[in-house]
């Protein structure tokens, strides 16, 4: 599924119109511990997190993720959004909880990330 299709599925608002909406999403993931995500993230991932500081964008960019999804209507601060626009990282915001986001994405057939051996 593409980022645009995913946004529709989770009633998401796209906060970074500059980022590519036709980007293919490879898998879904949720975690708020950035150290953990650095060790377990994957390219093309849609990452659900309540963290909104600039390092979130740095991680998403370095791991070549497809999108960051912020749950429960949490706002991302402007400097982070600016960085996301610069790096062309999709940031979606939704009123759904992380649980509901993942449930909807999984029901639509988006897999979790491949397990480490």
């Amino acid at each position, binding site marked *: 599924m593409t980022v645009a299709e995913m946004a529709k599925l989770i009633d998401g608002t796209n906060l970074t119109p500059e980022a590519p909406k036709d980007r293919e999403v490879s898998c879904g993931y949720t975690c708020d511990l950035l150290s953990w995500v650095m060790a377990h993230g994957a390219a093309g991932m849609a990452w659900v997190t309540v963290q909104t500081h600039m390092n979130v964008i740095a991680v998403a960019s*370095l791991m070549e993720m497809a999108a960051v999804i912020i749950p429960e209507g949490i706002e991302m601060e402007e400097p982070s959004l600016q960085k996301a626009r610069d790096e062309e990282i999709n940031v979606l915001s939704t009123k759904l909880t992380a649980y509901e986001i993942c449930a909807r994405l999984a029901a639509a057939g988006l897999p979790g990330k491949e397990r480490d051996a």
Partner: protein
Amino acid sequence: MAVLLEKSFPVEAGAYTTAGEASTTIKRTLKQLGISAEVLRHVSVACYEVELNLVIHSLGGTLTLLVDPEKVTLISKDIGPGIPDIDKAMTEGFSTANEEARTLGFGAGMGLPNMKRNATEFDIQSEVGVGTTITMSFALK
């Protein structure tokens, strides 16, 4: 081996908001050199981890990128405080990160092990009161 490229980036202690800038620049530079996506990913992860370590734990330091036809090398050199017990520091789950770093979602004690996992060769030297030097290389073939 002939060095094709050498670049150094100063990293400031405690500069959480700009953490990742050096790694982003390094990634962009390597991408322009045509380094494969897989190697690029390994370098990017290890580079960001080591940059964060400089921000979180060191008194400041420098990140140096070296590229030769065989490999990419990253050298992180700081001015202290040094690591008293390297074996302990290399243990997954062990962290001395402060509250600020933990609030941001860092300090899970995965940085050094993650660097080692991503690098082809990993070396860490440290002396308390002097500093820490981490050298990582990533084979291009």
